[in-house]
C-alpha cells in the first residue's frame, strides 16, 4: 500500500512541479520546500489532498448532476419518487467509503507524525548545529552556543547540516516558522522546545513569527540563510571579529518591547538561554543554569524545562511524565 502511495505521490509531485514551473509557483513556498522536513510535509500534504479528492471530486460532480437533472421543469422526464427515503445499501456505501478513506489517512498521518516529530533528531552523518531561539517583544534572538555568537532577526547556517533549534520565549507565545524548511513550533516561556530542520540547498528563506504576540508582531520576520560550510565559517568569523558582545545588560535592553533591525553579537553571556527558560519556573535561579543544561534532552513530553523547585541543571529525560500543570508535585 505504501508503495502505491509513493507512486501516487510521485505523480502528484510532478503535477505540483508543473504548477511550480509556471511563474507564480515560485511564490508558493510551502509547495516548494528546500529541506527534508519540508519535503516530507509536502508529501503528506499531497497524499492527504489526493485521498480527499478521491471523495470530493465524484461528490462535486454528483452534486451538479443531481441538481441539474432533477430540477423542476414542465417537460421533465426524470423520475420523481417522493416517498423514496431510505436504502440500506446506498447508506452503507457512503458510510463505508469515508470510513475507509479516513482509516487510510489516519494510518498515513500516524506514520508521518512519528517520523516528523519535531523533537526527534534527524538521521544525518553531520553533527547538528545548535541554534537557541528566543522570541521577544517583537524580535527574534538567535544564539549559537557552540560558536558563541548571537543574532537578531537573522540566522545563517550551513546547508546539508541538521539544525537543532531550541526554542523558548521571553514574551507572549509566538511560533517559529521557516516555510521552505519545514513546519512551525510554538515558542513558549518557561519551556525549551525542539525543532529539527535541514536545508538541502543554499538560499535565503523567509522566516515568520506565525503566532500573534501583540502590537508589532507583524515585524517579527527574519531571514534564514543557508550557505556552504566555508561561507558559514567565514560569516561566524566576521561576526566574532566585527560585532559587539551581547551582555546581560544588553539582553535586558533587547527584551524590552520594541522592534529591531538585524544585529549580530560576537559573544553571548554564559547560560543566557537557560536563564530565560528557567526564569518563569516559579523561582529565580539567577545564574544557576550552567553549561551542562544545554546537553539536556527536552523531549516532546517534557517541554517545560524548569518547573517549581527543580534546579535548572537537573537531568530531565524526554519521557518525563511531568506535565505543565503540576509544578507542586515536584517540590
Amino acid at each position, binding site marked *: 500500500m505504501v508503495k502505491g502511495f509513493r507512486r501516487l505521490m510521485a505523480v502528484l509531485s510532478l503535477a505540483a512541479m508543473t504548477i511550480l514551473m509556471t511563474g507564480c509557483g515560485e511564490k508558493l513556498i510551502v509547495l516548494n520546500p528546500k529541506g527534508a522536513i519540508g519535503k516530507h510535509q509536502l508529501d503528506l500534504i499531497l497524499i492527504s489532498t489526493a485521498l480527499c479528492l478521491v471523495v470530493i471530486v465524484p461528490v462535486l460532480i454528483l*452534486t451538479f448532476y443531481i441538481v441539474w437533472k432533477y430540477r423542476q421543469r414542465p417537460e421533465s422526464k426524470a*423520475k420523481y419518487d417522493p416517498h423514496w427515503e431510505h*436504502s440500506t445499501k446506498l447508506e452503507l456505501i457512503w458510510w463505508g467509503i469515508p470510513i475507509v478513506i479516513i482509516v487510510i*489517512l489516519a494510518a498515513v*498521518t500516524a506514520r508521518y507524525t512519528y517520523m516528523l516529530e519535531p523533537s526527534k533528531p534527524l538521521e544525518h552523518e553531520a553533527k547538528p548545529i545548535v541554534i537557541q531561539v528566543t522570541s521577544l517583544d517583537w524580535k527574534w534572538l538567535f544564539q549559537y552556543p557552540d560558536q558563541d555568537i548571537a543574532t537578531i532577526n537573522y540566522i545563517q547556517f550551513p546547508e546539508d547540516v541538521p539544525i537543532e533549534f531550541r526554542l523558548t520565549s521571553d514574551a507572549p507565545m509566538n511560533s517559529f516558522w521557516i516555510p521552505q524548511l519545514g513546519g*512551525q513550533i510554538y515558542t513558549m516561556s518557561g519551556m525549551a522546545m525542539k525543532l529539527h530542520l535541514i536545508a538541502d540547498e543554499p538560499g535565503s528563506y523567509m522566516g515568520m513569527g*506565525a503566532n500573534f504576540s501583540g502590537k508589532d508582531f*507583524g515585524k517579527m520576520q527574519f531571514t534564514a540563510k543557508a550557505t556552504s560550510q566555508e561561507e558559514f565559517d567565514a560569516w561566524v568569523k566576521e561576526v566574532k571579529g566585527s560585532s559587539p558582545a551581547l551582555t546581560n545588560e544588553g539582553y535586558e535592553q533587547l527584551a524590552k518591547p520594541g522592534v529591531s533591525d538585524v544585529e549580530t553579537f560576537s559573544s553571548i553571556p554564559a547560560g543566557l538561554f537557560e536563564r530565560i527558560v528557567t526564569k518563569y519556573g*516559579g523561582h529565580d535561579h539567577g545564574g544557576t543554569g550552567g553549561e551542562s543544561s544545554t546537553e539536556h534532552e527536552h523531549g516532546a513530553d517534557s517541554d517545560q524545562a524548569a518547573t517549581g523547585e527543580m534546579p535548572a541543571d537537573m537531568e530531565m529525560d524526554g519521557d518525563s511524565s511531568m506535565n505543565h500543570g503540576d509544578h507542586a508535585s515536584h517540590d
Partner: protein
Amino acid sequence: MLDNIKDFASDFFVTGDPLIYGADVSIGLTMIAVVFALTYFKKWNWLWKDWLTTVDHKRIGIMYVIAALLMLFRGGVDALLMRTQLAVPDSDFLSPEHYNQIFTTHGVIMILFMAMPLMFGLFNLVIPLQIGARDVAFPFLNSLSFWLFFFGAMLFNVSFVIGGSPDAGWLSYPPLSEMSHSPGVGQDFYIWGIQISGIGSLMTGINFVVTILKMRTPGMKLMKMPMFTWSVLSSSLTILLAFPILTVTLALLFIDRYFGAHFFTLDSGGNPMMYINLIWMWGHPEVYIIVLPAFGIFSEIVATFSKKRLFGYKSMVFALMSISLFSFFTWAHHFFTMGSGANVNIFFAITTMIIAIPTGVKVFNWLFTMFRGRISFPTPMLWTVAFIPCFIVGGMTGVLLSVAPADFQFHNSYFLIAHFHQVIIGGVAFGFFAGLYYWWPKVFGFTLNERLGKWAFWTWNIGFYVCFMPQYVLGLMGMTRRLSTYGWDKGWYELNLTSTIGGFLMGIGFLFQVWQILHSIKFMKRATGDPWGGRTLEWSIPSPAPLYNFATLPQADEKDPWWEEKTRIADGHAPLPKPKLEPIHMPKNSGIPFVMSSFWFVAGFGLVFDWLWMAIPGFVGVAVCMLVHSFRYKTDYYIPVDEIERTEAAARRNV
C-alpha cells in the same frame, strides 16, 4: 479640577482616531433619533409592553435576529476595514494597534454576537412551531437569555468608544491578555461582555433541551421530530456541556487580572498553555454548536424544495449526535504545534478526521434527498445548493489541516483563515441566511422579494470565492494571519487585492439583503400560512402565527405531519378531526429580565473599570430582581375560547 476631568475623559473615551470620532457622532445622532422617534410617535409604551417585557418566543426570536443583523453589520465593517488595510502592501490606513483591535472584535462579534444570536433567533422562531408547542419550556428564562445576550453584546461594543477595544485576538490567549501585557480595560470588556451573554447562551441551551424533550405535540416521538429540531437538540446539548468551560476559563482569567492570581500568567507558576487548552475545549464544540443547526436548516429546505422526504433520516440523526459527541475530543487540533508529542497529536488528528465521516454522510443524504425529486430554486434553496460544494471544499481543507505534521505548515497561515471562513460562511452563514429566507414569511407574514434576493445571493457567493480562494494560496505563500501589513517584496499583493475586492462584493451582497428587506416591507406581499409547500407543523398555521401558535394541539403521528395531511386531503380524505377549543394557558410578560440584565450591564461596566461603587449596586440589583421574581406568583393567564375563535377567524380571513 478641570484638568482632572479632562484627564479622566481622555482615558475614558477612546480618542485620537477620526474613524472613532465619526462613530461617536453617528452613535450619538442615532440614539437621539431613536429617542425622538419613540417620543414623537408615542411608542414608548408599545416598546415596553410589546417588546422589552415580552416572553413570547416569536418576538424574542425577532429581537435576536435584528440584534444579530446589526452585529453582522458591525463585524462586516470590521472585516472590510481589515481588507482595506491589506489591499496594498505597506499600507498605513490602520495602525498596528488599531488593526489588532479590529481583528479581535471582528472574530468575537461574528461568532458570539452574530452567529450565536442569529442561531438563537431561529431556535426561537421555529422550534415551538415545529414541535407543536405554545411556547418554550421556560418563557421567562428565554427573555432573560435574550437580554443577557443583548447587554453582554452592548457591553462589548461599548469598548469601541469608551475605554478601548480588546486587542489580543478573539480567544484572548494569555499572557497577552493578562494584566502584564494588556493593562487597558479592553480585555475586561471582553471578559464581561462574553461572560454576561454566555450565561444567556447556557440558559438558552437548557431551555431548548427541555422544550424539545418535554413540549412536543401528541404523537411526535423523538424519531418523528423534524430534522431541524434534532439539530437544535444536539446543538443545545453541546451548549450545555461546552459553555460552562468558557465561563470558568474566563472567570480564571478575570481572577488573574483583577485579584492578581497566577492561573495563566507568565511568572509565578502560571500556565498560559492551560488557558489555550481550556478555551478550545469550549471553542471547538462552539463551532459545531453553530453549524449543527445550519445542517438542520438545510435538511428542512432540501426536502421541501425537492418535494420529497428527507433521505436517510436515521443516519442523519445519528450523524448529528455523533458530531456533537466527537466535537468534545478534537480541541487540541488547534495547536498541534504546541509540541505535545506524537501520541497526543495522532489522537487529536484522528478524532478530527472521524468527524468528517458523519459530516460527509450528511452531504450524501442531502444529495439523495434531491435525487428523484422535483427541485425548485427560490432563495432558501439557492443558498442550500450553494452551500453543498462550498462546504465540501471547506471540509476537505479541514481534513488537510487535521493531518498533524502537515498542519505544521498550514497553522497560523492564511490557509487556515480561508478554511474556517469557508466552513463558517459557507456552512453557518449560508445556513442561517437560508433559514431566515425560508421562515421569513412564517415569522412576518409577508414574502421577501425574490429578484433582489437573487442579486444578494450571487454577489455574496461570487464575493465569497473571490475573497477566500486567494487566501488559501496566500497561506501556501507563507502569509501568516493577523499581520497588519506586509512588504512589496513578499509578492502577496495581487492576491490580497483580489481578496479585498471579494470582501467588498460580499459587503454589497449584504446591502442587497438590506434593500431586499426594506423593499419587501414597502411593497408588502402577504404570505399564506404555507407559501413553500412545507412539510412540518409550522406551515399548518397562519403566517404570522397567532400568539398561542396552535389553537388546538395538532396530532403528529408521521414524520412530515403537515405534508401527509395535505396529501390525505388531496386524495379526497377528510382532514384529521380537530379537538374542541379550550382556554389556552399562557405566560405573562415580565419586565424583570430586562431590568435584571441592565443591572448585569451596570455590574459588568463597574468591574471593567474597577469601580466597586458601581459594580456592587449592580450585583445588588441583580439579586433584588431574582428575589422579586421569586415572589411573583401571578405569572400566567388563560386566553378564553371566544378570543381564540375571533383570532382564528381573523387569521383565516388573512390567509
